[in-house]
């Protein structure tokens, strides 16, 4: 290996690491707030990338229809719990959120898809189709289980993952798709060829991290999410509804996943089942960060990207084993260092 190859590997690792960082942050966020291990994350990534790829061809993707179905199920569930209150306000909210929103998105996509809009707008459309799915997935699968144990929630996550994987196969088919780059340009930096797409990935990653920082530090809703993570009962006692923090966490995570998909779609071919492995690598980073620390997760994610890219050069057959093997020593270390005392 010479220096040129090394710099290419580093660049590759950094680009993938940035994506893993986003996914890792979303996993930590969802886990801290809802105790859900967000395995279906990868499906949101794949949906985002595939939706963008289909939008690139000027066709209408199937995901808005899927969004309508999700919304309809959420509507029925909300209607069922509505029988307890019969408040007009709740019904209006239910109709607007679960039927109105997906219909509006569906209509907008139907109108906008054939227009050959600029790539950034297409990416924006793809993200706004996928992001609300987080809300409905939370409403349908997780909200009824708000008080369940972590294990039950994990099993639910596996179920949601498999269901969304199957839906992905139905709607997108088994062929892989690759989206057009959001920006075609590239420039050379010394010996390096840097594509605009990878610069875009770094910028978006930094932007999302800064955005999350401000959300959690400066806004009341962000503080409420942190409070829920720190002390669930305490948050209830100040009137923070579990539903509110849960759906916010899921919408944020789905948005982050969809953005990752849109960023990743142009640099690699995405199949309906590609997302799972990508999401798992974000999960590795989240575990390295102890499922609780945002900064450590982000740094670990870069590390995961680096290890992966060098492993694919030196031992490409064992690439995945090496990456997932990283978890083992960390789990041993964490279990040794765990001090099981209660604090508030």
């Amino acid at each position, binding site marked *: 290996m010479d220096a040129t190859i090394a710099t290419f590997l580093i660049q590759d690792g950094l680009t993938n690491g940035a994506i893993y960082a986003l996914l890792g942050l979303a996993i930590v966020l969802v886990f801290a707030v809802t105790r859900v291990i967000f395995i279906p994350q990868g499906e949101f990534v794949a949906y985002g990338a595939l939706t963008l790829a289909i939008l690139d061809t000027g066709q209408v993707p199937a995901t808005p229809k899927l969004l309508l179905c999700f919304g309809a199920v959420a509507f029925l569930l909300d209607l069922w719990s509505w029988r*307890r209150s019969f408040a007009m306000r709740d019904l209006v909210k239910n109709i607007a959120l679960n039927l109105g929103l997906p219909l509006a998105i569906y209509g907008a996509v139907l109108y906008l898809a054939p227009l050959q809009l600029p790539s950034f707008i297409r990416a924006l459309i793809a993200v706004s189709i996928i992001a609300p799915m987080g809300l409905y997935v939370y409403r349908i699968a997780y909200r009824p289980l708000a008080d369940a144990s972590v294990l039950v929630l994990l099993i639910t996550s596996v179920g949601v993952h498999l269901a969304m994987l199957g839906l992905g196969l139905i709607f997108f088919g088994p062929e892989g798709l690759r989206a057009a780059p959001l920006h075609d340009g590239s420039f050379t930096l010394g010996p390096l060829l840097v594509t605009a797409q990878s610069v875009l990935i770094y910028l978006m990653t930094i932007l999302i991290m800064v955005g999350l920082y401000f959300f959690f530090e400066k806004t*009341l809703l962000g*503080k*409420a999410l*942190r*409070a829920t993570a*720190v*002390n669930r*009962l*305490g*948050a*209830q*006692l*100040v*009137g*923070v*509804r*579990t539903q509110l923090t849960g759906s916010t966490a899921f919408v944020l995570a789905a948005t982050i996943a969809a953005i990752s998909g849109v960023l990743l779609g142009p640099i690699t071919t995405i199949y309906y089942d590609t997302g799972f492995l990508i999401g798992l690598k974000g999960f590795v980073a989240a575990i390295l960060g102890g499922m609780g620390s945002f900064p450590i997760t982000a740094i670990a994610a870069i590390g995961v990207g680096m290890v992966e890219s060098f492993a694919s050069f030196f031992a490409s057959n064992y690439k995945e084993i090496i990456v997932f093997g990283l978890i083992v020593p960390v789990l041993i270390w964490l279990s040794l260092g765990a001090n099981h005392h209660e*604090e*508030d």
Partner: protein
Amino acid sequence: MTGSLLDLKNIHVSYGHAEVLHGISLSMEPGSIVTVIGANGAGKTTLLNAAMGVVPSTGTILYDGKPVPRSVEARVAAGMCLVPEKRELFGSMSVEDNIELGGFLRTAAERNETRGELYDRFPRLAERRKQLAGTLSGGERQMLALARALMSRPRLLLLDEPSLGLAPKIVADILRIVAELRTTGVSVLLVEQNARAALEIADFGYLVELGEVKRTGPAGELAVDPALMESYLGVG
């Protein structure tokens, strides 16, 4: 209708197969301080948790003459607020953030107004605004828990053992603040092991023993009852 603020009727609570409250009834007038006293394990904390909806119970709970909402959060929105025995603060967040979150259901203007009043009342908290709640001393933590609760502008404050583990001088401070709350229109349901101190500021008292109400009466009468003094207040 008597116009009670809170009416508990025949409240039963079980943990698994063990029933810990065997049909407790309690009623309190608006603007009053009612105290529930009794030995350790009598079910006082459970009673407060049941009133707040933190533990499931059977029986009737009327708040302001109407059945109380189901969820804890909806009860907070209706003006009830519990300061639990363990305080349940947000330890890794700043004092300021803890207070801010207390007013989660209020508007920004209401929050600003109440926060100003609270910092005047608890200057100690104003000094430690930037500190993490987990680093506060026991008395400061209790003050923060109280301040956080008051940020929700409650009509009914449920206080669980506010004096637990605190130095006598701080206990006196806290109970004085509780007594002052009444003048601002806040009613208080106070659970205390320190029965003597509680009866001093309360209007009415309930003595709970093994999950049942044993005695009720105006606080002044309970405080001078010789039999009660001996068994619960400690002589001397």
